[in-house]
């Protein structure tokens, strides 16, 4: 092995895939190794394909729903039975060619279309939040560990404080005040809801990652390649983001895959409790809470969003577990 000036970034680049040609290393790069382990895990592969499908659907929802001639907002009184208090006509909540998964009671809105739009809302909120959590958490964690001193103490106390807040309660409690403020500065009601959920997710989500990253950086700082970079007079910013960051991708990826399902479920809970997404925006949590009153006559209305929510969260967890095992440098945990 020849002496490379930045073995750190070579390792990291290998993990990221844009520099896997570091020919001096025998065998597989960490990324290739991780991918090979992941590919051998059949459950993880099934989960991944399912999640890619869900992501595809979420991105192209308007086109898919449009092609099928459906619409999540339009009322359809003809699918309802006025004699029975406007419950859907026909068995299984009004499943028919026009409405593949039936219609909502009272309004006759198409459940399939609302389910797909619900996926879009849910994934949009969760992935945007995770993106910000990763950016803020990583930056703060690196800075805290590398700068040390009073800044580290301050950040430490701040994370302590945020972690002491009851997450779900604060999420619910802040909903009216924060949405009011956002609407006051010009957000539409729909975007004020999105904004508040994302803000609260990010504000109360980054400290966990920051702590994790801080610990990692503290141990990385003692490694030779960082010392070498310091010795060659590299500027701090370069050391932090070119030397350190590439070595932090593994914990960040694992953290992100664990966070996504948690936030998807949290958004559903908020909407279920009536403080998250509001009408007319479709949301899985709201569908579940709406379905409660109709359970005896239309059980499918409860099971459809519930099952989809479960499958998405479950797939993320299966996939997250597999990624964690695959990226674990100790290697052979599950094979």
């Amino acid at each position, binding site marked *: 092995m020849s002496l490379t000036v930045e073995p750190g970034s070579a390792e990291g680049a290998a993990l990221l895939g844009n520099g896997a040609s570091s020919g001096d290393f025998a065998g597989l790069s960490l990324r290739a190794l991780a991918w090979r382990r992941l590919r051998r895990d059949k459950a993880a592969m099934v989960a991944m394909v399912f999640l890619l499908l869900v992501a595809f659907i979420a991105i192209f929802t308007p086109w898919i729903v449009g092609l099928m001639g459906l619409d999540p907002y339009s009322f359809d009184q003809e699918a309802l039975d006025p004699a029975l208090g406007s419950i859907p006509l026909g068995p299984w909540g009004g499943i028919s060619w026009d409405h593949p998964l039936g219609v909502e009671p009272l309004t006759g809105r198409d459940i399939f279309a609302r389910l797909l739009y619900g996926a879009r809302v849910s994934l949009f909120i969760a992935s945007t939040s995770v993106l910000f959590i990763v950016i803020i958490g990583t930056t703060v964690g690196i800075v805290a560990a590398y700068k040390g001193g009073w800044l580290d103490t301050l950040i430490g106390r701040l994370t302590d*404080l945020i972690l*002491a807040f*009851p997450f779900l309660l604060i999420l619910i*409690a802040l909903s009216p005040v924060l949405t*009011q403020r956002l609407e*006051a500065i010009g957000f539409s009601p729909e975007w004020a809801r999105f904004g508040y959920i994302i803000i609260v997710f990010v504000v109360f989500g980054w400290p966990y990652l920051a702590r994790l990253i801080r610990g990692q950086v503290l141990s990385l700082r003692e490694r030779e390649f960082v010392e070498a970079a310091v010795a060659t007079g590299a500027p701090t910013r370069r050391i932090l983001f070119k030397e350190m960051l590439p070595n932090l991708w593994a914990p960040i990826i694992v953290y992100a895959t664990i966070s996504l399902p948690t936030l998807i479920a949290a958004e559903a809970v908020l909407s279920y409790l009536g403080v998250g997404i509001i009408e007319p925006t479709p949301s899985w949590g709201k569908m579940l809470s709406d379905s*409660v009153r109709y*359970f005896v006559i239309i059980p499918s209305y409860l099971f459809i969003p519930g099952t989809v929510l479960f499958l998405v969260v*479950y797939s993320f967890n299966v996939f997250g577990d597999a990624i964690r095992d695959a990226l674990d440098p100790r290697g052979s945990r599950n094979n």
Partner: protein
Amino acid sequence: MIRRILTGILILILLSMVTFLLFNALPADPAALTCGKSCNPQVIAANRVRLGLDQPLYMQYVEFVKGIFFGRTYGSGTATFECDAPCLGYSFRKGEQVTPLILKALPVTIWLSLGAFLLWLIPGVLLGIYASRRRGRWQERVTLGSALVGYSFPSFFIGLLLLFFVVIRWQWLPYPSYISPFENPVQFLQTMVLPWLTLALVYMAFYIRLTRNQLLETYSEDYIRTARAKGLKEGVVIRKHALRAGLTPIVTAAGLDLAGLLGGAIITESIFSLPGVGRLAVDAVIDADLAVITATVLLAGTFIITANIVVDLLYAVIDPRVRLA
């Protein structure tokens, strides 16, 4: 250790400040929220003075903290009323002081949390041990697989399914209606069994995985090999050596989870209409009842901070390698 407690107190003070600020400075006009939509400006103005909302924010905070420790008097002149320590504020929406409201809700939440806690912790740890002993075999895969399924079920979906099948469709249990166990133990149990089960199913999965992972890590430690080499029985090795060292993260998680629940099992209480702290908080949010919201957030935060300190103390008791600084 003193340092640990002092830090805890500092965080608690900060928490109370931030909470107070969030719910008294963020809303456009807290006084307007005291009396709903059918409210005239005179009443709002009067309430503003009565609650001390006309004073600068920091004075309001000082009054609030003073109320917690020494009690306080609302209003002035003839129309005053006393709020004894610990005074957590006055809810105009309910026309009641907050402290008695919370004291009434707290026992429900405590019963719910403690019951669920036992129901998930004991089977969770036992199943975790079992999975670790059957490493690489089908029993492990089944245990961990079902744990992941349980872990992925949104708690409100489990709760709704249990409620609908057990209570509504099969009618095995009467509709939940909370009553104190000292008044009617049978109805108490009939009401609590499903909420307990809901929470237990959601939380247990995490403890199975955690226990199994912890044990697998400790099994490879030298002192376990030593213990086995001494000819100790496998049960003794697990109980006295492996579990004891692997227990610290489990104790941390258990302590924090219990504290989190004591601050209000929001979802479960909502589904099963239990009049606990979580339900109180959600109702307060829907009613925009700032006094109750502030108090419940503060209470829940206090539980979490206390649990953190208690967990640290327990470490030293459990793991002989940890010495308190």
